[in-house]
């Protein structure tokens, strides 16, 4: 059950390449779980930007002195995110949260490996805390193009049993991609479940590594979204259902978290021929 609130931006701090935003508003933190996201309206009144922007919820705090808050990590990219990171503390911004399905947590204690790429680390510390609270062990790998695009390293290091960093340019940790170090981590940590958030290619490699060792992976996908609440059908990707049938599924409501082995990774961005309702020859 999501709420729409005119939230107050009570903090806007630059951290590396990103901005850490804290929003306060009534009920804004209610029912938030790791993996949920928020949809934020951007631009002034009558802005030419008519669509919301989606961001993983980094942290949610019920009723502090400043009211309930949620925190987002925003990477300035196009006009909407640029606008957002330029907002002054104290300004009012329309936020809808929580949205999507959160990460599924193990019923019994398990060895968990958390893998994040770039701002994909935004929800990871939050997730780690939940896992630890359930008696799970937590190992963490953060990857990024360069050091300034790593977020939450200290917190992650503090919580993790084993912790690794990779950067494409070697400016921090091991030079290379997260997939280079995951096998080692899995062996060392006897990983039973992998949680991943980041760019699609990274998610795919994580899902494949998990599949190889027959363990489950939970992947937070990032598809272009117009509404974030399930009414527009822009955010779909091909997902295999329990019945074995592939459907074009909304990542905003049925995701953004999917089991890695249910996503037709190679066909993301296409409509597989065997997908339910796929165009027949001469059809649409």
């Amino acid at each position, binding site marked *: 059950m999501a709420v729409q609130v005119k939230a107050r931006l009570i903090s806007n701090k630059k951290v590396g390449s990103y901005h850490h935003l804290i929003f306060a508003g009534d009920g804004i933190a209610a029912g938030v779980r790791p993996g949920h996201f928020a949809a934020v309206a951007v631009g002034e009144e009558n802005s030419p930007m008519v*669509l919301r922007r989606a961001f993983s919820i980094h942290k949610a705090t019920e009723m502090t002195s400043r009211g309930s808050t949620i925190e987002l990590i925003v990477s300035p990219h196009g006009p909407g995110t640029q606008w957002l990171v330029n907002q002054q503390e104290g300004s009012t911004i329309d936020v809808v949260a929580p949205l999507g399905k959160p990460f599924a947590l193990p019923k019994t204690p398990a060895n968990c490996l958390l893998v994040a790429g770039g701002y994909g680390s935004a929800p990871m510390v939050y997730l780690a805390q939940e896992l630890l609270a359930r008696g799970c062990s937590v190992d963490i790998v953060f990857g990024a193009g360069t050091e300034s695009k790593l977020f939450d390293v200290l917190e992650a290091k503090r919580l993790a049993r084993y912790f690794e960093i990779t950067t494409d340019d070697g400016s921090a940790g091991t030079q290379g991609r997260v997939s280079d170090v995951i096998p080692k981590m899995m062996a060392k940590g006897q990983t039973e479940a992998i949680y991943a958030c980041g760019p699609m290619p990274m998610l795919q490699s994580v899902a494949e590594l998990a599949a190889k060792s027959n363990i489950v992976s939970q992947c937070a996908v990032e598809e272009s979204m117009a509404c974030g609440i399930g*009414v527009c*059908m*822009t955010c779909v990707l091909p997902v295999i259902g329990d019945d074995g049938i592939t459907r074009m599924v909304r990542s905003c409501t049925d995701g953004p978290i999917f089991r890695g082995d249910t996503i037709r990774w190679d066909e993301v*961005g296409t409509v597989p021929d065997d997908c*339910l309702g796929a165009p027949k020859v001469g059809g649409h």
Partner: protein
Amino acid sequence: MTIVISTSLGNLKLAAPVLTASGCAAAGKELDQFFDITKIGGIVTKSIMLEARSGRPTPRMAETPSGMLNSIGLQGPGIDSFIEKDLAWLANRGATTVVSIAGNNVEEFGRLAGKLRDHPAVAGIEINISCPNVANRGLVFACNVGSATDVVTSVRRNVGPEMPLLAKLSPDVTDIVEIARAVRDAGANGVSVINTVLGMVIDQKTLKPVLGGRTGGLSGPAIRPVAVRCVYQIHAALPDLPILGMGGIRNGKDALEFIAAGASAISVGTATFGDPSAPMRIQNELTAEIESRGFESLKEVIGIAHEKESN
């Protein structure tokens, strides 16, 4: 609000003037968490086809100046699943429901209508003959008097004389009045104006069309002047043909333009993506706008832009 905002689209009676736009509210359920969907004029559901349909590849949208392009391609579960799940939910929720249907051919439209004929929850049917997101442009029945007529005739034959029918028109035609007249003569009780305008965006990196479907439908405030013009033209030529107006409505003032131009009710589409409570908010704003101008009912404002005009 003390003024009377009830309205009607021919034999379709509405307690309030603002409906959702097809494809911008799914089947109402998601929006119900942001406002009470029984308090607006009604829910127009995503156009449904006979069979389940996957729609087009992604990316399916691109934001454009004061608008967006979409190429969903009529993704949906098919009419039977729709009736069983979505329509059942709407019936049980007690929302006024207009079901939008889309067929691959005239005969499919007829069969779709037939399945809805005796369903108690169906307040009316919107016949989507104008979806631009179909591989074969020939599928845009609204671009041709003949095919538009055939579709509406077939639907009318399958639902009997009582069922309120709205034909949804495309602005991408040389003479929208001609199409409106044709669907009226074929048995439509009213027209829904407008569907999206065919458009394209080229990706700056790949220099290829952004959308998986290459072309898409342009919607949002950018097209509002085109939509108001279409409503105005149709009302001027066919004053007795009820119009459900839409296209870029973002607030009460925008909605008022459509009512003044000749719409008896309006639909809110793209605005819902930016503000999930937009339909409810806009209905309240429209009511306030009408009241603040000293009118006692919405009906007084319908088509008022046409009265004793200067030049």
